[in-house]
């Protein structure tokens, strides 16, 4: 999977849930969205990206991916 595209998509998801004033809840919603709508290979790729430094990921996207 094109990791740059996945990073952009993860950041877009996080940008929506960032409106939640509860940071933990926001991160969980990001994670939940990824679980429910991303195919396993996409989740695996974004997790690998995070493990390798997560270049380009927003802070909330990172926190969401950490919960996967």
């Amino acid at each position: 999977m094109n990791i740059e595209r996945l990073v952009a998509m993860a950041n877009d998801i996080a940008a929506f849930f960032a409106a939640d004033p509860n940071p933990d809840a926001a991160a969980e919603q990001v994670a939940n969205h990824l679980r429910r709508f991303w195919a396993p290979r996409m989740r695996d790729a974004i997790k690998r990206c995070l493990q390798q430094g997560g270049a380009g990921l927003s802070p909330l996207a990172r926190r969401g991916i950490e919960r996967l």
Partner: protein
Amino acid sequence: MYSIDHKDLGTPAAISNEPVTLDIDGSPVTVPAGTSIMRAAALAGTRIPKLCATDTLKAFGSCRLCLVEIEGRRGFPASCTTEVAPGMKVRTQSSRLLQLRRGVVELYVSDHPLDCATCPADGHCELQDAAAELGVEGSRYASGGATQRGALQDASNPYFAFNPDLCIVCSRCVRACDEVQGTLALTIEGRGFESRVSASQHESFVESECVSCGACVEACPTAALTEKSPLGLGAPTQAVTTTCGYCGVGCSLKAEVKDTKVVRMVPNRAGTANKGHACVKGRFAFGYATHPDRIRRPMIRQRITDPWREVSWEEAIGHAAAEFRRIQGKYGPDSVGGITSSRCTNEETFLVQKLVRAALGTNNVDTCARVCHSATGYGLKHTLGESAGTQAFTSVMQADVIVVIGANPTDGHPVFASQLKRRLRQGAKLIVIDPRAIDLVRSPHIEAVAHLQLRPGTNVAVINAFAHVVVTEGLASNAYAEARCEVDSYRQWKAFVADARYSPEATEEISGVPAALLRAAARIYAAGPNSAIYYGLGVTEHSQGTTMVMGIANLAMATGNLGREGVGVSPLRGQNNVQGSCDMGSFPHEFSGYRHVSDGATRGLFEAAWNVKLASEPGLRIPNMFEAALDGSFRGLYIQGEDFVQSDPNTNHVVAALSAMECVVVQDLFLVETARYAHIFLPGASFLEKDGTFTNAERRISRVRKVMEPLAGLADWEVTMQLAQALGYPMHYSHPSEIMDEIARLTPTFRGVTYDKLERLGSIQWPCNDAAPDGTPTMHVGSFVRGKGKFYLTEYVATSERSTSRFPLLLTTGRVLFQYNVGTQTRRTANLAWQAEDRLEIHPDDAEDRGIADGDWVGVSSRTGDTVLRAIVSRRMTPGVVYTTFHFPESGVNLVTTENSDWATNCPEYKVTAVNVVRVGQPEAWQARIRAERSAQRSPALR
């Protein structure tokens, strides 16, 4: 001319529950109060002669042929304009009435040719009928149409002709244009014998404002307005009720057939979605079904550069199955997938997703709704609890305020637009939120009270500003929202939108919408009392498409505008079965009825029914499939009725992905653009060639009925069954009704749906189950489907696609009335007379800056690609924004659009692409290349 099986009752039905009993010709008749004597008599089986009356139009009372006698009343009232009254005694036949009627008919005949034997009306002429019934064989006043004889005929419209010789100036055509279609393109000019029907201002029909809906032709009592198609085909002998295969309005049509040929389409008066109306596409543009370009034999080839080779169904399907199994063996079970089509029936989409999940063993299934209304499904499901619009179309007739956001109903959903315009002319207020000045903003007797001409990509800022006004000015319906919604989410949302950053004054800089105008519009919406929102792809096809859908739902909940007629949130669906394809479990994360694949109980239900273990993880969406193809992990795809290469954004990216696959199977009517990258082609069947159901934008399930045999021998559901069989997963259905029975068993919202019930009721709006055995016209009555409605915080996040010095304009795309989506069907009809190419609309200021004149070729470039189009200089556009359509493959419009997509659903951001536009001398090399390639790729039968 009406449908061959229609019995005209003369005047429209009255809307009253109060019965009135009167006496007609000595027999008691009971009808609703407000019914005309003419209609009451017709309902009782007594036909009163008439010419200017018909039951789709308000009584006019001009022909004076329908005179009757009423005991106790002087004179001879017209039965069409006289309402029934309790105890009234009516005589419809007497010697005096006969004398009067004969006199009237003689006057009409005095200015009408008497060559009935050779008239194109072919026996379907109400004047001829009246003359015969009354024994009139000539006229004492003149002979044979002296004043109209020799008037120029107008055959400019490809579908119908106007012959003034045969016109009796009854005004039915003019009234049909006014009352049924709502375009007001026709008028009667002149006086007395000089009276003539005129389109616009002395223009030909094709050049006038006429939208060619055909309502005038249907209403014409003589052969003055005559369809061209029946000429030469002979009179139809049978009428088959079916459902239109074009837009999401889902008009009920009667296909009038002679032998196996469709002679004409006539809108069904009993059709609940369309109430006897149709548009130019539904009524006239069905010729594609028998176009010579149709592929009638399966074809295969080893490589996409090879020529096609015609083969048997058995060989093609066997080859496809073997290839999918080979790929899965080599790359794993999730290396293949399938695409269901919003143009196919519910039963067919259900079967394709079943094949993918059960036979291929993967959840890699998606549908073309991905690129249009996927954001609707997500947004409405999360806020209200169901992935569908909340209203029936008729609800609009109860609306006091109508907000149209990012939709152009007069082009995209014309039959609903006619109803909408009728309500607006009755006085409902209209608010339009759209970068373009769509026709609704200002048209005859309609003017929007507010047109919020926002910058593309700023929808969420605008809807939040609406909400800000509602909340901060105390216009919210707190009691409703707190009773029906999650209170915490409501209060949190109120605080969120009340923030100063969402005041209209603050958002004006973002959206370009003047604060005062937005405040006025928000106040009008909140005041209602019945405020309804209708929206289209201008809402969903954005990087914040889902956020905007949620914002709309939030606003409707906060103002109490859900759960009754006249209000609601109504997505106007693009294709005929977008709603249905979504309902049927076409998305990779959910089964039919929008239940997630990770839900063990639901999955267990399907596993038991299908006798197979099913995957519990979501599969790939269409754009994800492309990415996976490019990384080598996705190698095979079964595509039923979708043309990615033309419809999906960033064409070069799509082509690269398809080219990387080892087995692409395309099932379609024609060699569409995507077929250029296919290895196997399976001929599809048009909606005329199969049985099934479509579900329209108001959740209405309607029957599609076969009127001719599939040209290639198999309906699409039969092809899918054969493919499943070849994959080792036999399916056993002898008729689509059995597939619907399975859908009903497995899908709670369809539990009560059967073909028998559809036959009985005509159509059914889901949910249809024990709680609502006849269906559900209005959703969320009393409570929301999810229990308590939930408000979501809809922060505005600017799209990354912004105008720059290199790409200073914003491109937005859409469609026009005469063409449909990628044009596969309408490009193969006479609709080309109105639009034969995609054009770029540009504001005069932007055009002048670039030296562009109307009709010039202009180069359009973005960060993803370039193309060339002809320009239309138009004040419909706002400066800085350009617009085009994507109906013609040689336009290559999606070469320019980008990979940006909605955060929740990956619905592409078609509505915002930063572009540069320059005047150029000639069409792009791309267009020359595509023409050459298409020619080289023709099927053996077409070479």
